């Protein structure tokens, strides 16, 4: 119903980010639970950077490349933000303990709190969006 306008887009972006926030919560909990497991490597969720790139590609103005063959690549490939999915990334490069485990429990706690506060802010924002529409339709 609301696709194709800024309201629908904002709500959609907020919803996707909230989904990511839940996944991130799960990943962080898993990291904390395995803080003492030997040879465990922590995971992370990457989504926002990809989303930013996709959103920027919609508005970015680049020189149109002359394409003489359909296999030629254009300079700016528009990425639909709806195609961006959150990804779990295994952090296997860092090392912080002798048993091959790289979970820093304080850092994970900080990330959990930040994630939770971000989720609260986003649920407030999405509630606000619907309140605005309800004011008009009341």
């Amino acid at each position, binding site marked *: 119903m609301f696709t194709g306008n*800024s*309201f629908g887009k*904002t709500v959609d*972006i*907020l919803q996707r*980010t909230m989904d990511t926030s839940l996944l991130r919560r799960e990943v962080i909990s898993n990291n904390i639970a395995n803080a003492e497991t030997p040879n465990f490597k922590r995971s992370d969720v990457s989504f*926002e950077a990809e*989303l*930013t790139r996709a*959103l920027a590609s919609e508005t970015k103005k680049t020189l149109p490349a002359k394409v003489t063959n359909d296999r030629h690549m254009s300079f700016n490939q528009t990425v639909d933000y709806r195609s961006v999915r959150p990804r779990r990334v295994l952090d296997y490069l860092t090392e912080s303990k002798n048993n091959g485990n790289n979970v820093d429990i304080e850092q994970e706690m900080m990330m959990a709190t930040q994630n939770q506060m*971000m989720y609260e*802010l*986003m649920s*407030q*924002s999405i509630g*606000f*969006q619907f*309140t*605005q529409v309800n*004011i*008009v339709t009341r």
Partner: protein
Amino acid sequence: MSLLNTINENMVNGNFVPMKTTSPLHMKAVKNSDPQEIPSESSFADLVRKGLSAANDDQIESENLFVKMISDPDSVEVHDVSIAMAKANMSLQMTKSIVDKAVQAYKDIISMR
């Protein structure tokens, strides 16, 4: 009392040449009228249109801030987001009540006999 105080620029005839200013702190020879100031001869329709577009700008700004909060969290402060939300909410409520009042006034007028 010096001459400068008694003569203001409205009393001087002739062409005003704008001075080149490279900083907003520089004083201008010709004072710009305040862009926010509403000219007295603007019609009611213009005022309504101006108010509507200001309310719309508040909505758009709040939505942009939401997206920015996600895409670039370091550049947006949380209080800015909530202030933008409150602003957008208030301007929409105000627009709504003005519309309601206008409709009510119209109804009052047509029911007068």
